[in-house]
Every structure is written in C-alpha cells, then in structure tokens.
C-alpha cells in the first residue's frame, strides 16, 4: 500500500497526463462534424459579437469587389427576368419558385479554409427563422454549404470545404448525377465522384446541384470540370471540379429555405419504413 501511494505521489503528473489525454482522444474520436458545428454554435453565443465586428472591418475593404459582383448578378437576373417575361405562362414559373424557396441574406461572422473540417458562422439564428439544412449560397448564387446548427442569434454551416460534406451534383443540362466531396487538398478544387459513364462530360462544363438532396435548389452553380477520368471499373467518371465560390473572400451569403423539405423528408421516411 505504501509503495502504491509512493508510486502515485511520484508519478501523479504522468498519470493525470495519461488520463486527460485518453479522455481528449476519446472525445475527439467520437466527435462528428455535427458535434463540431454544435460546439461552434455554442461558442458563438459568447464570441460571435466581437468576431462579427472584426469581420465587418475586414469586409469593408472588399466592398468595391462585392458591389461589382452583385451588380453583375443583378444584371444576369434582369436578363433571366426578361426571358421569362417573354414566355406565355410566366406566373406559373414564378409561383412555383416562390412557393418552394425562401431567401434570406446573412453576414459571415467567421469562417475557415485552413482545416480539414471547415465551417462558416453566420449572423442569423433561430430568432431570424434560420433552421438546420438550409442551403448557403454565395451572393452570386454559388453553392457554399448548408446549415448544421443554430443558436438564437447565430448559425453554423458546414462548408463545401469540409471532408464530411457531401451533396448531389450533375453536369448542367444533363440528367446523370454524381456525388460531390472535398478531399482536404486544394481549396479551389473539389471532386465529383461516381458520375455515370453516359454523362455528357467535358472540360469546362458547368457542374450544378441536382436538388435531390433537399439542401440546395437544383441547378445552383458549383464550379467547372477541370479534368476527368473513368474509374477502374470503367463505369463511372471521377472529375476534378474548380470551385466557383471564392471561400477565402466570403463576407455575405444567401440562405435558402426549402419550404416543403420537412414534408418531403417525412414522406420519404414513411415510404421507406413501409418498404423495409
């Protein structure tokens, strides 16, 4: 007994180190990207105000560039509006779009690009009507991520530049879909996997969202095909996609709420339970 006590007295720092380290490794090993987003959302309740103020100062210097991008985007939308104005059944098109999605601007409080699990913190939370699974787009309409967790005043989105991020994607104008993911490498490039060998893929083709995942509206720009090759089984393409959104200079975003999402998801769940 005396020896045991003496051993503990002499090595209690080492023992404590081992205990703390094992606990920390255990917590980290069990954590998921959702745990990390939840932690960030809680932390932002404390640090979000100051972080937002600092980001505001930084954002001030990129106002000119953002204004130019917004002007270009407005011009594009005007052009689309003019196109729809020429159609006979315009009200039907606009009504469907208005019924399905709600849009809300938000400001980026903090974001990272230098980690393998990158998140974006926004200045809108539960009190503003933000909820999990809302899409996050750049002001020009490019896919940026989707909301994982919210506090009263802030929300945390998983970034496309997160190795746990997945969403459906396709070549614009084509029906075949693949899966989009980031490998943790370059922040300008993501990978489109498992795109059917029958897809019309070519260098420079636009890669857009499918809308099937219920996070993003369909046909939101993700980027452009930079290179592609058939996988070993010669049945699927894997392609490198150059991202359209500039994540290193993201100050404002647009949140998109798919109004019927919960109803659709519930219906799908119910149908699955009946099948299995």
């Amino acid at each position, binding site marked *: 007994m005396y020896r045991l006590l003496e051993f503990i007295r002499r090595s*209690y*720092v*080492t023992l*404590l*180190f081992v205990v*703390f*380290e094992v*606990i*920390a*490794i*255990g*917590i*980290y090993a069990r*954590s998921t990207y959702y*745990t*990390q*987003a*939840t*932690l*960030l959302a*809680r*932390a932002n309740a404390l*640090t979000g105000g*100051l*972080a937002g103020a*600092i*980001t505001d100062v*930084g954002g001030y210097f990129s106002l000119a560039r953002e204004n130019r991008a917004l002007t270009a985007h407005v011009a594009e939308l005007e052009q689309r509006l003019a196109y729809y104005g020429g159609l006979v059944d315009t009200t039907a098109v606009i009504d469907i779009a208005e019924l399905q999605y709600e849009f809300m601007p938000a400001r980026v409080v*903090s*974001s*990272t*690009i*230098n*980690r*393998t*699990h990158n*998140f974006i913190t926004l200045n809108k939370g539960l009190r503003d009507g933000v909820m999990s699974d809302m899409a996050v787009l750049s002001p020009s309409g490019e896919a940026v991520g989707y909301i994982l967790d919210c506090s009263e005043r802030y929300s*945390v989105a998983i970034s496309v*530049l997160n*190795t746990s991020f997945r969403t459906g994607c396709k070549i614009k104008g084509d029906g075949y879909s693949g899966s989009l993911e980031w*490998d*943790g*490498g*370059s*922040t300008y490039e993501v990978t489109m996997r498992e795109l059917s060998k029958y897809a019309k893929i070519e260098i420079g083709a636009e890669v857009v969202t499918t809308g099937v995942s219920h996070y993003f509206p369909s046909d939101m720009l993700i980027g452009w095909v930079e290179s592609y090759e058939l996988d070993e089984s010669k049945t699927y393409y894997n392609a490198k996609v150059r991202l359209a959104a500039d*994540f*290193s*200079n*993201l100050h404002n975003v647009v949140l998109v709420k798919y109004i019927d999402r919960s109803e659709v998801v519930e219906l799908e769940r119910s149908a699955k339970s009946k099948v299995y």
Partner: protein
Amino acid sequence: MYRAGYYILLFAVAALLQIFFFNSLSLWSCFAPMVYMAFVLMLPLNAPSIAVLLSGLAMGVVMDFTMGTAGLNTIATLAVAYMRRPVLNLVLGAEVVRDGGIPSVQRMGSRPFWQYLIIMEVLHGVLFFGFEAFTTSYLWYQFLRLTVSTLASILFVWLLMLLFTPKHSSR
C-alpha cells in the same frame, strides 16, 4: 501576485489573438498558425509540472470550445505541456531549469531557446495536424500544411514571446 496577473494577461492575449485573428485568417489553406501555445511555452522554467499540465489543459479546452475541435487542441497542448520539462532539461540542463526565469533568448541563450521553441512547436504541429488529417488523403499536402503552419507558429509565438518578455527579468 505580479506573476499571476502577468500570466492571466498572457493567457487572455494569446487566446484572443488565436480566436479573433489567427482562426479567421483565410490567406492560404496551408497557413494555420497556433499562437496560443505561447502561453504554455512562456510559463516559468521552474514552474511545477502539474501547474504546466493544468495550464495546458485549460488552454486546450478553451481552444477546443471556440474552434469546435472537440478535443483536438487539448490532445496537442497537453502533450506539449507534459513534454516541456524533459525538453527544457535536455536543451538547458536541469540545474539551469531549477533556477527559473521566463523562457527567452536572454535567459536561455540563443541556441537552447530556438531548440526549445522548435521542438515544442513541431510536437504540437505533428499531433494537431496528424490527428486532424487522420482519415484524409493527400499526405504530401498535409505534410506541407504541417511545415508551413509550424514555421508560421514558431515565428508568431516568438514575436509574442518577445512582446511579453519583461526586459528586466533575465531570470
């Protein structure tokens, strides 16, 4: 009392710099300096091992909470805190370490100081980026990330140490 106030201030400055400035730096995906380590590295040479370990734990937990890393910072910071005394004994000698003082070029001498700073930062970087990239590919890219971020950490921690080393306390 002076010492306690000094280290509380250092803790706050290192943590706030990391949270509000370095965490939001979106310059390059490989550039992720960890300046909060300055707090652990600047504890007195003869600080009791248990105090260093608990200081490392406190800083690691604060960083994990604010960065949403769920244990990752704690893993790396605890290891640095635990290894600090053996590394100091190795580069400086146990007797000099027992004499105390704040780690600095003036107190330790140029060569031992840089050995100490580099060993500690590399240990922290290897554990932090190693655990973070555990399941990802691009090994060469992760190595580049480790190298660039560790070099940047060494530079910024050194600057913070210069700023927080009282000129009159060579001991």
